[in-house]
């Protein structure tokens, strides 16, 4: 009697597991069967059109300064894929620290994006205020990455350091640390990079090569007059307004 009942219950349990299995299968099927595309974004640090060489290579700015670049790092966040049909797809929780001294950090691999012809990319340069006021985070936002001000909380959105004979500062160094998340000194900036209108190809896998051109940082400033920015404020915001134009599409490679 009791045994019978147990057997009945067990049978129920087995049925439940069977159903759960089917459901799981369906979910897996649904997520893998809809076709997706993969996007590889390569952000290449350059000076003008030349790939950037840190420390040893002298470059000449449009203002006539000779510069060596030692550190070039910036955050990209809130990455969105723009499609030809006007739709957008936001990469969830996207915060990337791009570091010229770490090639791997310059390659973003985005898999399983919705199909469709990509028209461009939109992203923020820097870290938004929500992440700036909510404590210690992981991954590229980890405070050990050295992109955070310790005495006055907030991420450094972008950092450029180097040397120039034009600098009147100690050891002829220049340091631009741009940050500030709070009104009225918010230096978070949006950048949009569009593909040429005639490339409408849909692809299953695509590589977009962008250049992040350091020379743009110097286009309007003479290092003799200004060799550093270390705090949020007007100067930081002005520089952010300039460097948000440093991104350029260099190459678009795709497979149908």
């Amino acid at each position, binding site marked *: 009697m009791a045994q019978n009942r147990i057997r009945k219950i067990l049978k129920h349990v087995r049925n439940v597991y069977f159903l759960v299995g089917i459901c799981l299968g369906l979910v897996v099927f649904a997520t893998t069967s809809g076709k997706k595309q993969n996007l590889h974004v390569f952000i290449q640090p350059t000076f003008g059109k030349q790939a950037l060489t840190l420390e040893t290579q002298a470059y000449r700015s449009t203002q006539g300064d000779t510069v060596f670049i030692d550190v070039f790092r910036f955050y990209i966040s809130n990455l969105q894929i723009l499609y030809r049909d006007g739709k957008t797809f936001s990469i969830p929780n996207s915060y990337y620290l791009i570091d010229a001294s770490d090639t791997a950090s310059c390659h973003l691999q985005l898999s399983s994006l919705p199909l469709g012809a990509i028209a461009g990319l939109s992203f923020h340069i820097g870290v938004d205020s929500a992440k700036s*006021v909510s404590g210690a985070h992981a991954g590229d936002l980890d*405070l050990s990455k050295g992109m955070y001000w*310790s005495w006055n909380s907030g991420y450094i959105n972008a950092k450029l350091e180097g040397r120039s004979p034009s600098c009147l500062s100690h050891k002829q160094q220049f340091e631009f640390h741009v940050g500030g998340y709070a009104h009225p000194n918010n230096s978070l900036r949006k950048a949009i990079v569009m593909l040429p209108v005639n490339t409408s190809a849909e692809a299953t896998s695509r590589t977009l090569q962008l250049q992040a051109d350091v020379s743009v940082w110097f286009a309007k400033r003479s290092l003799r007059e200004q060799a550093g920015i270390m705090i949020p404020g007007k100067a930081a915001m002005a520089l952010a307004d300039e460097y948000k134009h440093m991104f350029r599409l260099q190459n678009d490679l795709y497979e149908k």
Partner: protein
Amino acid sequence: MKNSLKNIGLAALLLSAFLTLSWISAREKNKIKHLIQPAGWPAPVYDVEKNPITEEGFTLGRMLFYDPLLSADSTISCASCHLQQTNFTHVDHALSHGIDGKKGTRNSSVLVNLAWSKSFMWDGGINHIEVQPLAPIENPVEMNSRLSIVVAKLNASDRYRQKFRKAFGKKNTITGQQVLKALSAYLLSLQSFNAKYDRVMRSEPGYHFTPAEARGMDVFLKHCNACHTAPLFTNQGFENNGLAPDPYLNDGGRIKVTHQPSDSLLFKVPTLRNIEVSYPYMHDGRYKNLQMVLFHYSSNISNTLHLSPALQPAPDLTEGNKNDLLAFLKTLTDTSFLNQKEFGYPFEDFQ
């Protein structure tokens, strides 16, 4: 076929039972430590629901707090400047000494009831407790290190790797985030709410104010409570309490953070809990004892540009008022907190 289905079902059953059990035991293991919200207190600012504090996180944070490994030459720990018996401030130092005996420009803060703080440091420059420890670790006159260096040192220690695994799960390498979360778990646990004042307010049997303490409380409510608001004894605001600016230190306080001229010479209103033991006083430690502080408020207020209206005119305090006020301030001393073993040097961790 039928048999193999049955087997799969059975395996799934066993697997899920195992998962449930291990989930339960994991939860058991990382016991959540709750902040206590004493009756009549506002809700804490720190959201423990989002960022649970675990027992393991707390003990790990305590070990880090007492470990000089955090400084460049392994000579200075957090506790060097924040001693439990003095309400976690630097005992008897006006300006804190750090590495190589280098002097900072400010008196070290007390560390108490930090879960209720909206901002940290005398100028409020730090917006979240979890990011606070970065400041002393990387300050050249305090520990003069880098968080990345601390993380590397910890990763080289078997003992620490084991402790971090216990607190944060199986991940193999220790991260900066984990170091900061552990330290803040300890800092947040430093709660003081069992002073005589609290016991009298809770009408605990056997606890009564003396007549002097009771009169002192009246004086306090009249002249001090606007800024040092009970029960936290701070309103978390930024005020100028009439200290004459020190031309040598040239510390503008809040203006350093906001760059607003109207914030010049404003400093965060400090809590007065355990004030009896956390001398010297003020952001630059200029007053050695409470008598001097009371003399300041009654007779020495500088008419600085942004002097708070609450101190205009200066409190009219007779000698009798001051003695009563002093008696009342001493009822804020919570000896159980100052001697609580759980917060002290963890000998077992450093054997």
